[in-house]
């Protein structure tokens, strides 16, 4: 993708692209359990290639999530239109895919005007921007999540937040990611299986504006992995291989691996499978299904919450009710008038501290969408989470509590009365 952009920006191309790119490289070695020497080696290799490209580049390590501000999770009110000045921003996100970079200077490098005085970190293995304590905290976080599926999803979330932050800090308005058609088809089915059916259009569509000012675009979504591989080979595009969190994991280890293996196997038998799934993804819209109003947003993925009432006849309702029924033998309710109950049944004789922790966790889970909830349920406690998530969660639950207190006095706009509910 980087090479394609380079081509597009060169003087010889017929339709010249009109933006100013930068590159972000996220070092996820800590999450994958690599040693610092390995990470430094990979980083220097990547740096070599990045510098040959000539675009301003930023290297960040995943540990820096521990120093992110909570504003990362807030969606800014203004639209993206105003801040076009510094141009667009590119991120090679899939570090386990071959990063496409150009070697050699046969093409004229783009002397794009207004490239901006972006600060490059120098090529030496300079001072790290993270501490060993943060590395440990990151390892602890990933170890506290038990399944590989949840780990991959957590990694994805943290990575997105980090890239968003870097983009905002340097004034970029767009982030381009290099997902190919095959990857998107796999992601589509994976997200279906994770319960994120409501958000497929954002997760796999061309442009994803749920973060407000920074728009994520996917320009490579029409190319299959095979095409990308051939392109790299034909044009001798060098790449750096880094192991990812699921390298060498057995096929059954996570939902992502299962779906990938399944789809590729099916593709061998029915060659149109990937393109069919991809075409189906094009038919998805971003509007919610009729009848679902727009409401609060998920804390982690910033999509509108897709949770139904706890006693509705839906999959969510069925799961939330099954926690309750064995506790109180249901005297078969006459109509759908079951009083709403807290989502965590208080057990008798439990210590006060555990109760509070349970409450905090319950409040945290309430702010997440269905898919994020299923993932975060695996966390035993909220402590290993980075401080920005915890701070924002507390803030939101505080606000929600205050709102509940004064609910009956608020005048809703266009309102069907929401008061008296609880």
């Amino acid at each position: 993708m980087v090479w394609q952009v380079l081509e597009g920006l060169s003087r010889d191309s017929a339709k010249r692209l009109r933006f100013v790119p930068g590159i972000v490289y996220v070092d996820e070695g800590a999450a994958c359990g690599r040693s610092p020497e390995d990470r430094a080696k990979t980083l220097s290799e990547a740096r070599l290639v990045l510098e040959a490209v000539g675009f301003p580049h930023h290297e960040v390590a995943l540990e820096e999530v521990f120093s992110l501000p909570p504003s990362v999770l807030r969606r800014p009110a203004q639209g993206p239109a105003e801040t076009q000045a510094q141009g667009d921003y590119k991120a090679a996100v899939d570090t386990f895919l071959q990063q496409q970079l150009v070697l050699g200077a046969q093409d004229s490098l783009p002397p794009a005007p207004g490239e901006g005085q972006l600060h490059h970190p120098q090529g030496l293995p300079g001072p790290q921007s993270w501490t060993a304590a943060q590395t440990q905290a990151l390892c602890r976080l990933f170890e506290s999540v038990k399944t590989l599926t949840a780990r991959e999803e957590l990694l994805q979330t943290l990575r997105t937040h980090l890239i968003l932050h870097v983009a905002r800090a340097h004034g970029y308005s767009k982030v381009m990611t290099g997902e190919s058609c095959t990857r998107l088809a796999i992601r589509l089915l994976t997200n279906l299986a994770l319960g994120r059916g409501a958000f497929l259009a954002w997760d796999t569509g061309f442009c994803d504006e749920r973060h407000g000012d920074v728009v994520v675009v996917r320009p490579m979504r029409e190319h299959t992995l095979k095409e990308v591989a051939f392109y790299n080979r034909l044009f001798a595009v060098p790449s750096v291989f880094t192991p990812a969190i699921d390298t060498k994991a057995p096929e059954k280890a996570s939902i992502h691996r299962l779906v990938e293996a399944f789809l590729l196997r099916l593709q061998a038998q029915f060659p149109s499978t990937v393109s069919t799934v991809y075409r189906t993804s094009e038919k998805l819209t971003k509007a919610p299904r009729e009848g679902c109003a727009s409401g609060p947003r998920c804390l982690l993925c910033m999509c509108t919450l897709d949770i139904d009432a706890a006693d509705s006849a839906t999959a969510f309702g069925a799961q939330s009710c099954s926690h309750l029924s064995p506790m109180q033998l249901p005297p078969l309710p006459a109509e759908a008038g079951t009083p709403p109950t807290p989502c965590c049944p208080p057990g008798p004789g439990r210590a006060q501290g555990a109760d509070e922790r349970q409450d905090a966790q319950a409040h945290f889970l309430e702010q997440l969408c269905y898919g994020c909830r299923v993932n975060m349920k695996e966390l035993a406690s909220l402590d290993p989470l980075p401080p920005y998530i915890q701070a924002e969660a507390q803030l939101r639950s505080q606000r929600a509590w205050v709102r509940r207190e004064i609910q009956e006095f608020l005048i809703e706009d266009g309102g069907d009365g929401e008061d008296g509910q609880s």
Partner: protein
Amino acid sequence: MPAPPCASCGKARAALRRPRSGQALCGACFCAAFEAEVLRTVLAGRLLPPGAVVAVGASGGKDSTVLAHVLRALAPRLGLALHLVAVDEGIGGYRDAALAAVRRQAARWELPLTVVAYADLFGGWTMDAVARSTAGSGRSRSCCTFCGVLRRRALEEGARRVGATHIVTGHNADDMAETVLMNFLRGDAARLARGGGLGSRGEGGALPRCRPLQLASQKEVVLYAHSRRLDYFSEECVYAPEAFRGHARDLLKRLEAARPSVVLDLVHSAERLALAPAARPPRPGACSRCGALASRALCQACALLDGLNRGRPRLAIGKGR
């Protein structure tokens, strides 16, 4: 090691663990919980109003057996009248045994049974004949496509004969999850747009259909049948290995091993899919030949039969419609 006591009544020894929550329950409490959940689904979704005459699609398999049993237990409370409708597709060696099971159930539970046969309704075409006719086309036979469409017509016809106001079928959560996976893999946006709810409301003269067991996973259905010692027919259809659904089923089994809640997560995803208006199916009209609900001039059943009768069985399947 002795079994732990039941988590809800605390008196009897637990006989099983619920797949969904891992709790140990005795047989009676589990069955009560299962029935309570089906009741909640029916009430919360307002699926079956009191006084409805309900045609239960009974195939003799575990899902329809459990459905019939649960509805029979809940019928007095909900005020329903139940009829069993069985469909004879004419698959030799398979359907006869299944029908025998249905007849035994009808006799045991004293429910009226009506059997509708493809051979009567569709001009002599049985599934075996359809399979022979489509076998020569080279690729996989797609007889499941025919069977599905024709069976729904047959069920509707049977329901009308007994004067039913609603049709219920025993699809469970695993079926719904497989369906959504399958529709994505085949790119069937129209079906994706239509599915996801608890059943169709019955537009244009078709009877409303619903699936009360939709939120119960297959494992729980089997556990229920085992706890109540229900007698059902448990073999697979002869043509099942060729169906595309087999791939989706295989994937679902593996996903369930990786994460047990994936079945309900898929059902939740299916409920919340948002498809572009252009992809949604057009407003339904009536078939010009038989008057049933159709989105084109001919309903799918008539179109398929047309193809069969003309000796071109793949006429109504695939993109050349």
